[in-house]
């Protein structure tokens, strides 16, 4: 680079250039992980993220994922920033030790400071879900766990490399604790290479613009995001308190329905306080979500920034909130060593609950979505053992201007193609399609869930399943209805048919068994009678809505692949009453 600028402050042109530069760094780090990682979890499912931080560890740019906390803080607590040197690299997966920055132990964080000469100019991070890190069952997460020690090895924030020299013993110990050490090794190398690449690129950026200008740019990015989110909070939330309650079906250990209670208070002097202290107590089972205090702000921030490419997600979003109150011993702030492995379903309902808060305040947030479904199948064919971790998509909530997406998992996470799955694992897919009528009806339809039906070719296999929203389906809003629930059935339609508990482990399957998983949808928005008949017809012909539902719920009569306009008009004359929310039935307030 020939151009070196040493301005102390960054002007609006360089700010845009630096922002573009950081985006490229992120894209390059992510591409490297995607191309070199070894476990299907990372390379096909793409469960990985990256972020770039300023010199003091404040997150300046991250992936579009709301589930991030303060990632540098846990390292800085044990390794003061001023003691860090070039070539140092840090590593952890300690949920409690990071106060929820990592929220289950499978997620490994690799983090390194970036130096230009003697001066620290920032940090880069790569993070990915590792397929197996030991613990009670293959895959490390299981509905059966009752403490975090059963969920695999815990790595406290530690220094993995000092001045470029790696602590190989620590890695050897880590690999030895995995049931799939080759994958663990390959994935670790991929993440480290990605961090090293990020360090090089960030150093180049610092040398091109000067550390002061870069530092100022990162600070401006955080400041700008915070300002935008703060303005949106003021526009949406009136002075006073809004409250929303959402539910999960339970912890798989007999808890029954558990409630997540969120309150947003705007004070007279414009302080914004999130209070989730009324949430139910922590659980015996692993559905506890050790929520980092940054999560509500990240989620609200991502909602407010929308798809606007002028802004980036960063620590500015959580800084727009003045306080986040959580209660120790609750589902959202469990005490060590409560198990956390299946926290994903609580996390997804937390996002829905925050959408609910926004809806109560009158902002057109998406209706609720189902929690993505996790399947862990461990078994053997002869002597060969396998672990299949499959993630199955669900329906997402309807927006105020569009249908909820059908059959998606989460940001950036992909499925295993059928052809890949059958090549790699002893299963045959008999069906993979959208789950008809699972999308919550509305003017805008909620997304449909998915049907994935396996035939087991393994001699024997043990199944763990995580599927929520069966008893408490995702709510609809503004007159829209709640989504259809999911279910798990073995050998459907045969004398050997049996229904599995939707959050359970230890389900034995044998060769020839049929495993049918149907996942839930997303809630709808707006009165179903307001959906244009042509859209309902397209849904019926496309297999997303049944003829019966079209008639009974949407008031659209379909015969011979066309809309009977007369009969439809007659039905729609008797328009039913709706209320603000719907979960099974209409209600002005959900509890």
């Amino acid at each position: 680079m020939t151009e070196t600028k040493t301005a102390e402050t960054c002007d609006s042109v360089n700010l845009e250039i630096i922002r573009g530069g950081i985006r490229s760094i992120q894209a390059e780090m992510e591409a490297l992980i995607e191309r070199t990682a070894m476990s299907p979890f990372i390379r096909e499912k793409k469960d990985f993220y990256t972020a770039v931080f300023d010199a003091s560890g404040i997150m300046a740019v991250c992936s579009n994922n709301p589930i991030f906390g303060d990632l540098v803080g846990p390292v800085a607590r044990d390794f003061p920033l001023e003691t860090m040197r070039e070539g140092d690299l840090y590593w952890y997966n300690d949920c409690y030790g990071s106060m929820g920055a990592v929220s289950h132990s499978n997620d490994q964080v690799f983090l390194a400071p970036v130096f230009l000469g003697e001066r620290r100019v920032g940090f880069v991070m790569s993070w990915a879900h590792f397929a197996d890190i030991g613990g009670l069952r293959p895959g490390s997460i299981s509905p059966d766990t009752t403490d975090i020690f059963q969920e695999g090895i815990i790595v406290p924030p530690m220094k993995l490399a000092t001045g470029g020299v790696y602590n190989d013993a620590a890695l050897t110990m880590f690999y030895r604790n995995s049931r799939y050490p080759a994958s663990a090794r390959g994935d670790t190398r991929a993440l480290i290479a990605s961090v090293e690449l990020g360090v090089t690129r960030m150093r180049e950026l610092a040398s091109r613009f000067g550390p002061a200008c870069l530092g100022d740019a990162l600070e401006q990015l955080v400041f700008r995001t915070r300002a935008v989110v703060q303005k949106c909070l003021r526009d949406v939330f009136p002075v006073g308190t809004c409250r929303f309650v959402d539910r999960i079906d339970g912890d798989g250990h007999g808890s029954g329905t558990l409630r997540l209670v969120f309150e947003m208070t705007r004070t007279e002097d414009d302080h914004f306080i999130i209070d989730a202290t009324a949430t139910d107590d922590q659980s015996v089972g692993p559905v506890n979500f050790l929520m980092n205090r940054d999560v509500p702000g990240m989620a609200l921030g991502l909602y407010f920034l929308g798809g606007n490419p002028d802004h980036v997600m960063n620590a500015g979003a959580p800084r727009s909130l003045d306080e986040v109150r959580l209660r120790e011993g609750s589902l959202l702030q469990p005490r060590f060593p409560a198990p956390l492995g299946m926290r994903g379903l609580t996390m997804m309902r937390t996002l829905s609950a925050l959408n609910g808060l926004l809806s109560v305040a009158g902002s057109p947030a998406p209706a609720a979505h189902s929690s993505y479904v996790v399947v862990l199948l461990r078994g053997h064919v002869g002597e060969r053992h396998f672990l299949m971790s499959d993630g199955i998509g669900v329906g997402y909530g309807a927006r105020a201007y569009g249908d909820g997406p059908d059959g998606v998992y989460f940001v950036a996470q992909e499925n295993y193609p059928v052809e890949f799955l059958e090549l790699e694992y002893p299963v045959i897919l008999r069906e993979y399609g959208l789950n008809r009528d699972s999308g919550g009806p509305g003017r805008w339809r909620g997304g449909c869930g998915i049907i994935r039906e396996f035939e087991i070719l393994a001699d024997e296999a043990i199944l763990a399943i995580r599927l929520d929203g069966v008893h408490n389906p995702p709510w609809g809003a503004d007159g829209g209805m709640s989504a259809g629930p999911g279910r798990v059935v073995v050998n459907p339609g045969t004398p050997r048919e049996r229904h599995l508990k939707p959050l359970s482990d230890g389900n034995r399957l044998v060769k020839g068994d049929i495993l049918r998983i149907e996942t839930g949808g997303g809630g709808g928005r707006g009165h179903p009678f307001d959906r244009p008949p042509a859209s309902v017809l397209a849904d019926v012909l496309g297999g997303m809505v049944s003829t019966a539902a079209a008639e009974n719920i949407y008031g659209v009569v379909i015969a011979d692949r066309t809309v009977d306009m007369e009969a439809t008009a007659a039905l729609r004359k008797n328009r039913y009453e709706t209320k603000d929310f719907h979960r099974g039935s209409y209600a002005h307030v959900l509890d």
Partner: protein
Amino acid sequence: MSSTDPVSSVVSVAVDIGGTFTDITVQDRQGQAWTAKTPSTPGDPSEAFLLGVSQALSKAGIPSHDVRRVLHGTTIATNMILENKAVATALVTTRGFRHVLEIGRQDIPRKANLYTWIKPARPVPPAHVFEVSERLSAEGNVLIELDEESVREAGRACLSAGVRSVAVCLLHAFAQPVHERRVVGILTDMLPGVTITASSDILPVVREYERSLATVINAQVMPGVSSYVRRLEERLTGYGIAAPLLLMKSNGGVASGGSICRSPATTALSGPAAGVVGARAVAMAAGFSDIITVDIGGTSADICLMKDGAIRLTQHGRIGEWPLPLPMVDMVTIGAGGGSLARVTPDGVLAVGPESAGSVPGPAAYRRGGTQATVTDAHVVLGHLPSLLGGGMDIDVQAARKAIADTVANPLGLEPGEAARGILAIANNAMVGAIRVVSVERGYDPRDFVLVPFGGAGPLHGCALAELVGIRTVLIPPSPGVLCAQGLLAADLRAEFSRGLRATGTPDAVMVEQSFTAAETDATTWFTEEGVPDARREMSRVALMRYAGQGVELTVPWPGTMAQAAETFAAEHRALYGFDLPDATVELVSLRVEAVGRLGGAITRSLPPGQGARATGMQTVLFASEPLETPVYDRTMLGAGDTFEGPAIVTQLDATTLVPPGWHAVMDESGSLILRHKIKESR
């Protein structure tokens, strides 16, 4: 050359149909060229095609029956895909999988926002996806026999849906096409006049969503492309040209009309590919084989790297929203071009693109109604563009200044010149990012390469981009604005023949050899169909390899044995990613035979020696350091060996070149203008 060899230096006609103009180049046996330009006729492009050809031939005084080759680059398939103007199409798939397109990879894209993202409508709605009863295993064994009655039922559904094209993609058909073949047979009988595409013919590789999509895209454009090609061939025959019509593909090669009609999706990126092939030809003629090309048009820029003159192919390309894993030139496209709009965001940040002013209203300086500042307006304000199209069109400097002042300078409190430099800095930075993707990210140091900027706006940005990445040599092609024609004349016949290996793990040598031989047999059949004589056939073997467990393969030339290939692979992995894994198993995932039928290429004629460069005028240019009186040179008046120093501006019919201070220019006898940075870059 003897007349029995159809692929020697012969009279060739190259036709490039753009949105506004159709450009025709005729080249005779000695390499002399004549060009013609005629307005495009979007209603029936073959009208402008034939008019232009007849004009160019009469200019050249060459009778139509002397033409031995007609080369054509078309964006007809591209436009049909991007503008969603393709015909109604059905997809026939395996029972149980009708939502294969709807579900896709079940992700919300990494760059999308969870709260606002709406799933894009698929090219075929689920109501037009029909299932047939059959099933193969991953190894290609029949698990469920094909139920022919279910195929006929699907055929009847196609009939009542009124589709004009059908894509057939069954699970695991890449391993065993027997069921797909039978389905195509039955549907062909049932659906006269309907085109039918089988996935095993288009893209026999694993992953059903991507393969289904490629098959659907191919099917959708097939009727349109077929009738287009047929009409062109009829017009040519009617005009007395019996020569074969060869069309440019996304892989940078050409193929006959017949093979394009079977797999039209292979032309999806033919436009940018033709430019890259043209850039390669002019760079090689000037003695450079390591180049980075930057093709800057009105709305986007395409960036591509060539090492040792080799154009790399990728199977991870995209078209619009969709992945399209057909082999295509490995390039990066970004939304920054001459028409890209500059704006100030509500919180005071200057942003450029991806929105574009297009050709209407266009940049404010063009007086077609544009009022918002564009990249071109920034050039005008800074004095980079004294005139356009060789003086054929006036530039409204005042309008450009006003647009920059209104939309950028005033809101940010800047001088118009500063604002214009800011706009260019941001546009250049986006292009530098793309240059880094094709170089640094692929393990190359951009400073080892020559930059070849082209397209209407390329030569204005070339030196600035070179300075930003530390490149010391910039090559401006003879006709940077119309390089596609050059690319067509220089193109060879190209096709790839892939074989997936069904088993994972290390394959045995016999199986590998058999697979390569099978692919080479296909290639030989293709050579014969295309009429390529033995002496001009070239085949090379490449292997797609990865570490067991990885999801993305690296392409390495096949050195002969698996052990040698593993070494090459490890070296490549180190170069690209910074590490290799000596203990891990290396897998061979698929094989590819790349077939090339050499057409002889463009013949370059040397430029007559110059009489010394003489400026034809002066222009004030606002460089960052200071305003400088800058000489303006007319490109047509420069001869071989002529030299001059920057600052300078070089004008020609199709582009304007900006030579900043610190650069030295020399006209190469190949006709290219070579710019060298005078201060040697320290490394």
